[in-house]
């Protein structure tokens, strides 16, 4: 007599596959937001599992700030080619050129806030009725209270107080014309779960997650990769350093960590002993106590 028991990773996987299939069944034109970061890579892997032997029945959407790590772009294009996926790109540069948004200036200029407009424009252009994202509830306080099926009004806004109760595994994706949803299949995963799952399933990830030497500079206690997008203050001196990235976002707001971890096992050990959350090195969240909540209300991921 064997016991019918799943490990925590297999139970999370099963829940996420169920959510992805509900999205495919309940919406007409869903799409997976794909940043090239580990969370969206795991979402894509789960989608492949959920629909195998069919192809993933929705396109990938990349909101391209133009300030990318080159390694991430190569990874994205290889993945699309290997799995025959459809890729739709929404360009923040185009939003700037067409006057939809205005580029921030100064040392702290970031395109992070601008990408909300590009995202909403892309959703509208391709008539996407559900944008699937790799957000996790352990990342941030406002995310901890967001539903798996998150309703957005015709302006793409999230109203935390008007959220629909979500019970058992029944998801309500009913909406009026013009409204859309965000769906978060890995809501219940932690950073550790994601890393353990990547190891378990042998999922390829971009090389910059592993330790490498690159030119960096320090600002406000955060280590940034130096690039042509960054405007250095006079006292900021670039130097070579052995680093890796714990999250991958826009280059202007993603900090590196001083780390020798060059294998998944070493990364997992490092995450396990870390005393700072992964968003601790994200400048975009530090702007204010409710930074994430405010951005989400405007239509951010």
């Amino acid at each position: 007599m064997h016991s019918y028991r799943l490990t925590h990773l297999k139970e999370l996987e099963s829940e996420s596959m169920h959510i992805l299939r509900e999205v495919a069944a309940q919406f007409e034109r869903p799409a997976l937001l794909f940043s090239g970061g580990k969370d969206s890579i795991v979402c894509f892997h789960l989608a492949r599992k959920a629909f195998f032997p069919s192809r993933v029945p929705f396109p990938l959407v990349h909101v391209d700030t133009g300030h990318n790590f080159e390694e991430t772009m190569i990874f994205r294009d290889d993945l699309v080619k290997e799995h025959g996926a459809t890729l739709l790109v929404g360009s923040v540069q185009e939003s700037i050129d067409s006057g939809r948004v205005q580029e921030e200036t100064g040392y702290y200029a970031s395109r992070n806030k601008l990408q909300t407009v590009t995202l909403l424009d892309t959703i509208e252009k391709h008539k996407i009725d559900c944008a699937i994202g790799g957000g996790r509830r352990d990342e941030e306080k406002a995310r901890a209270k967001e539903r798996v099926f998150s309703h957005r009004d015709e302006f793409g806004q999230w109203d935390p107080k008007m959220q629909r109760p979500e019970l058992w595994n029944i998801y309500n994706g009913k909406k009026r014309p013009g409204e859309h949803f965000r769906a978060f299949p890995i809501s219940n995963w932690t950073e550790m779960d994601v890393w353990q799952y990547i190891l378990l399933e042998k999922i390829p990830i971009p090389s910059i997650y592993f330790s490498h030497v690159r030119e960096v500079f320090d600002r406000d206690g955060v280590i940034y990769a130096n690039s042509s997008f960054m405007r250095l203050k006079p006292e900021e001196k670039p130097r070579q350093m052995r680093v890796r990235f714990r999250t991958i976002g826009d280059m202007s707001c993603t900090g590196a960590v001083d780390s020798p971890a060059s294998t998944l096992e070493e990364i997992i050990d490092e995450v396990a002993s870390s005393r700072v959350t992964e968003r601790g090195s994200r400048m975009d969240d530090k702007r204010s106590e409710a930074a994430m909540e405010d951005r989400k209300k405007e239509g951010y991921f």
Partner: protein
Amino acid sequence: MKDNSTHGYLDMDLLRFTTAGSVDDGKSTLIGRLLYDSKAIFDDQMEAMEKASSKRGTGDVDLSLLTDGLRAEREQGITIDVAYRYFATPKRKFIIADTPGHIQYTRNMVTGASTANLAIILVDARKGIQEQTNRHAFIASLLGIPHVVFCINKMDLVDFDEAVFTRIQKELEDFSSKLEVRDIRYIPISALKGDNVVDRSQRMDWYQGPTLMYLLENIHIAGDLNHIDRRFPVQYVVRPMTEAWHDFRGFAGRVTGGVFRKGEMVQVLPSGFQSTIKSIHLGEQELEEAFAPQSVVITLTDEIDVSRGDMLVSPNNMPETGQDIDVMLCWFNERPLQPGGKYAIKHTTRDARCMVKEVKYRMDINTLHKAEGDPTIRMNDIGRVHLRTTVPLHFDKYQRNRSSGSVILIDEGTNETVAAGMIL
């Protein structure tokens, strides 16, 4: 922390639990302690909390700031929604659905309880059973939570007196005999001082039972799911229509009960056609069997019509089928339940409409008595209702299977989820 990382993770399982309580019963302190002692609170979160606490002038670091994430909550110092928190020990990963205990938030408690294996109910040792203790226990029972742990908290304020604990336990036992919970435990703790939370109390040697953390790590949960009645609601039909998989037609879904094995006979509902399981797929992997709560794709030997909303079951163990269902309904919306009103209804993967034929009674959730007279069901009320659906549903009683025994109602005008129902 080594065991928590690369080495032990292949043998960890997942426990979902809910905590309900009001501001002053020590719930935030308890959660804070569990998170802090399992190292799930990070330095930058602590720093943010310290910053916010000093801004509010609250002196000590307020651990509730960890869960109260929305601006309105922080401004008003209340919790308005279910907050999910995560921590892990080398043995298990835990998901906490933390819900506020005020009467107007019954809907949050019900939401948090719907997926929980276990409920922690805090009782203040100085006050004993309160109205809200009964309410929390009743909701845990109604939502079919298999394990309930009563933590008699603030034992430090009653001099760790065994007699106080024994008296409260006796009262809780009397009350709990009316409930349908299989497994009920009682632990004397002090969340503030840490007694019997993670470490065994030195000051209550009269208590021989497990600490809360030991219980959370070791309580047997594999048997909580139904592995007897085979139920497989079809979510999605997989048809690759590619060269390699030309004739492949698989049914994607999540097993909600029983074990499905290759070569075994299944019956499709509602059509009634029977066939044999040809293969079971999990991604590129083929399985011999699938059990709850696995998500798989099943193919059959015969070409029969199966679509979303259908259910694969065992021919000799069928669910009930019918258009008239009796449910215990929790109402979530400001607009009261309309007797005779029509709503959209979702049951497993099936969508239908229903009409409210009769409100049998409203429950007084503080006394567990049927409220006489006015049967109106308003926001946060719970009542027994008779529904008539437009198409037959294939269901089990909720107490037998939480997935095939649950429904939600949706307002067809606003698309809001207005109620959750447990089939009786």
